């Protein structure tokens, strides 16, 4: 066996990558004349030491869990879905149409309706690239990224020409009726004496994201469909030989992926903004790729990675508020983490693997 132990692959590699990213970020912060230790302290205090900070972190993490799961499901069938951004936008359109035009008596029903809307719209947006990949062999990376632009243009058109209230300046829909508003963590956990999660956007859809993690785990490792998806991912020809239809698996995996990406919009559109706004995805569709890579396409890993990125986003806001680090550099710091944990994965893994193999050989001697 020329592989390192599983725990090292799952824990050590991401940790070392993170450390490298942190060191590089510290150098960047030093270079512009700020103190990196103070910056880290600020990020931790503003995020983990305040309930409202947690509220923001969990809000961002909810987005990243959905989009991370979306990327992971497709990835198990060896499909690289980078259209999460577009699928989430169209999912948001589904949420908005359901919330605006169906009179719900209670938020629980509205949540069910919005979930259905998000899944159907998001999945529909993934269907065309899926079909093109399955039937015509058009590469999914190209088609899904193109569909991001089409989705942005479509959302723009719908908001400006159809959903914008007359006389409004913002390209945004009207506010959803009050009965569709999801309870926030503040509504759920704060009492008169302890104002927890004050003003933070985390809401009940966080639990929906947790449930989605469990469902995806069950789907991938405990169902026949999951087995088919994984077989397709390992070897298409072998799966075909075993009687698994590649067309069917590709289309279904992409539909699930698109549906999950669309569900992200429940959090941002119904949960936070309570109206459809133009940049509602806030780049979460792309962050989902990094989250899935870092989480090794496993729902538990995705949960952890989403929390980390939630921390980075909320911590980044704290930096923007209380230091003179410009927002472009905060983006650089976030990008460094993505670069190291996602793209430069092998840079850490290969030397580490060599170390482990060296150790093993010495033991064998």
């Amino acid at each position, binding site marked *: 066996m020329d592989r390192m132990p599983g725990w090292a692959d799952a824990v050590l590699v991401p940790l070392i990558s993170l450390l490298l990213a942190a060191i590089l970020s510290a150098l960047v912060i030093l270079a512009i004349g700020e103190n990196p230790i103070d910056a880290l302290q600020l990020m931790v205090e503003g995020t983990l030491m305040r309930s409202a900070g947690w509220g*923001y972190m969990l809000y*961002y993490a909810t987005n990243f869990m959905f989009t991370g799961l979306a990327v992971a499901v497709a990835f198990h069938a060896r499909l690289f879905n980078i259209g999460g951004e577009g699928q989430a936008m169209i999912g948001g359109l589904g949420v908005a149409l359901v919330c605006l035009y169906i009179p719900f008596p209670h938020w629980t029903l509205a949540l069910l309706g919005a979930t259905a809307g998000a899944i159907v719209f998001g999945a529909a947006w993934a269907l065309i690239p899926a079909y093109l990949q399955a039937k015509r062999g058009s590469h999914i990376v190209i088609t899904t990224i193109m569909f991001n632009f089409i989705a942005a243009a479509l959302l723009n058109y719908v908001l400006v020409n159809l959903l914008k209230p007359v*006389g409004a*300046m913002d*390209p945004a829909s009207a506010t959803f009726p009050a009965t569709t508003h999801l309870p926030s963590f503040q509504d759920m956990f704060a009492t008169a004496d302890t104002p927890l999660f004050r*003003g933070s956007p985390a809401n009940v859809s966080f639990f929906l994201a947790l449930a989605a993690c469990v469902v995806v785990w069950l789907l991938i490792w405990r169902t026949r469909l999951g087995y088919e998806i994984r077989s397709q991912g390992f070897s298409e020809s072998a799966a075909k030989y075993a009687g698994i239809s590649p067309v069917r698996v590709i289309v279904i995996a992409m539909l699930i992926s698109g549906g999950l990406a669309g569900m992200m919009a429940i959090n941002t559109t119904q949960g936070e903004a309570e109206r459809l706004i133009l940049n509602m995805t806030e780049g979460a569709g792309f962050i989902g790729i990094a989250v899935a890579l870092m989480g090794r396409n496993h729902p538990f890993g995705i949960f952890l990675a989403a929390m980390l990125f939630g921390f980075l986003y909320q911590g980044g806001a704290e930096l923007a508020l209380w230091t003179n680090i410009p927002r472009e550099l905060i983006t650089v710091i976030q990008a460094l983490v993505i670069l190291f944990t996602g793209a430069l994965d092998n840079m850490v893994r290969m030397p580490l693997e060599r170390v482990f193999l060296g150790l093993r050989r010495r033991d064998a001697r």
Partner: protein
Amino acid sequence: MTVMKSFLGAAATLALCAGAALAEPALIYDLGGKFDKSFNEAAYNGAQRWADETGNSFRDIELQSEAQREQALRRFAEAGMNPVVTTGFSMSTPIANVAGDYPDTKFVTIDGYVDPEEHPNVKSILFSEHQGSYLVGMLAAMASDSGTVGFVGGMDIPLIRKFACGYAQGVKAVNPDATVIANMTGTTPAAWNDPVKGSELATAQISQGADVIFAAAGGTGLGVLQTAADEDILSIGVDSNQNYLHPGKVLTSMLKRVDVATYDAMTAGPDLETGVEVLGLAENGVGYALDDNNKDLITDEMKSAAEEAKQKIIDGEIEVHDYSSDDSCPALSF
């Protein structure tokens, strides 16, 4: 118990001191960013002037995402910053959501409108852009040889149509036969920062005969001004004084004194008077820029005509139609 009490007392005193030490103003820029050479930068300049003159400091933040709008308001208010000044109409909804939770903090929304009855701690500052645009429209018509002038707007919203409508009225007041070509860059916030498209629109208007172009388009306007200078025609800047960008090529700039509004809000500090304030020609909230860079372009004759019209608008003799009052424009169709 007594130990506990004195400890709590000390903690409370500390907290109070921390609050007092932080009673500095805060400034929140819209997504366009701090250095857009136009709207947000004007706010920054006003704040910086206040800081230089008083020796005090202020906090500011450039937003990265929609969710941060409310967050920035809350965090600044919780830290005891007062007043919290914001730029751009997109901040009015978040302020309306937040203001009730922090009754002791004064919020200022420049270009936005928050109902003063509902939120007594919010000041909405609006500008009579149509009046300033009317004056630069007059100057444009007088400077034009072809009788055709252009307007390039940023995002197609009522606010920008208000600019265009005032401008067209000013042009028609000087030359009733003049043609006004009006184009908008786009329908999304991206239209505020697309200088390439601005340049294309300017080229298209020049080919239709325009020889003066007014750009009310934030960062997009930089492309309009550049193209106008390259093609040797005149342009008109907006919000900040942009005459210096292409000396001798920028006829004038429609000033919107966001800097003065910011400066005044910070000078007033926590005692800021709230409510709705409309800054027009009479309050020097809008106007046109005259400096060394355009002194050869604006003749005495043009200047006296503009000054006369300005006085008439202040006295109420000339009524400039405000597009946003009824969503229509008598001088221009969109």
